[in-house]
C-alpha cells in the first residue's frame, strides 16, 4: 500500500497514493499508516483525494488507525470523492471525523499553508 508522509507546519499529512482502500488492502493500509506515523506527535490529515472507492473494510481500517493514533492525535480527512463521502454519510462516520473538502482547507484550518 503506497502512502506518503509530509509534514506541513503543525500537522502530518498522510497521502493515499492509490485509488482504492478495500478489503484487499485494508490490512496493508493499517500497517503502512502505522509505520509512517509512530513516534510522532500532533494531528494527522489523511488526504484521500486519489481514493475513488472505500468499502466497509477500508472504513474499518481508517477507524483502526485513529485508534492507533490515540485521543491526543486527531485524524482528519481531506479530499473525499463523492463515493467516499457517501460511505461516510451512510455510516455516519462523518460525525466522528473532521472532514475537509481539500487538503488546502485542512491545512488552513490548522493555520498552515500548503507548500507550493
Amino acid at each position, binding site marked *: 500500500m503506497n502512502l506518503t508522509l509530509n509534514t506541513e507546519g503543525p500537522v502530518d499529512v498522510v497521502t493515499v497514493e492509490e485509488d482504492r482502500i478495500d478489503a484487499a488492502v485494508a490490512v496493508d493500509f493499517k500497517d503502512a499508516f502505522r509505520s509512517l506515523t509512530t513516534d510522532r506527535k500532533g494531528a494527522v490529515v489523511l488526504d484521500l483525494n486519489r481514493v475513488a*472507492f472505500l*468499502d*466497509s473494510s477500508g472504513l474499518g481500517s481508517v*477507524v483502526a488507525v485513529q485508534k492507533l493514533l490515540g485521543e491526543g492525535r486527531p485524524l482528519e480527512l481531506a479530499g473525499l470523492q463523492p463515493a467516499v463521502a457517501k*460511505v461516510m454519510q451512510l455510516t*455516519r*462516520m462523518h460525525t466522528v471525523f473532521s472532514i475537509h473538502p481539500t487538503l488546502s482547507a485542512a491545512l488552513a484550518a490548522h493555520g498552515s499553508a500548503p507548500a507550493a
Partner: protein
Amino acid sequence: MTFQIGRQTWADTPSCDLSFAASPTNVRFALILVGDFLERRGLAAARDDVALALGEALNNIEEHAYADRSGGPVVLRVASQGARVMIDITDYGAALPDKKLPAAMMPELDNVALNDLPEGGFGWALIGAISESISYERRDNENRLAFSIAS
C-alpha cells in the same frame, strides 16, 4: 476455476455474467468489470452505489460464507432493466445465521469512546441503505442473494 467472464459480457447484452473464486483481489476485479458493464449500458450513474453494495455482499461471502475454505465459487449476474440494476449472487458456502438476512442496522456511534468505535458491521446496513429491494434464499447447499439498485 479462478475467474470466468461470461461470453456475452462484452457484447451489447443486458447482463454481465461472472464466476470466480472468492478472494479480495477477485472481488476487486469483479467490481471493476461490473463498473465497465454499467457504463456501457448507460448506467454510469449507478456505478458507485453498485460497487459499494456489491462489494459488501461479495466480501461477506469471502469472509463469512467461505470462512472455512479459501477460494469458494461465486456466480454473479448483473443485469440492467431500464434504469434499474438487478444483482444476483450465488455461493455454496455457509448459510447466513438463521438462514435469513441480518438486520440492516448501522452500528451505534453516538457517545461511543474512541477505542470502542466499530471497525466493522457496516456491510449489511450499507447494502440495505443502497438497494431498493433485497431477498435471500438458502436452498440445499446454496445461498442466493438478489437485490436491485436504481440509477
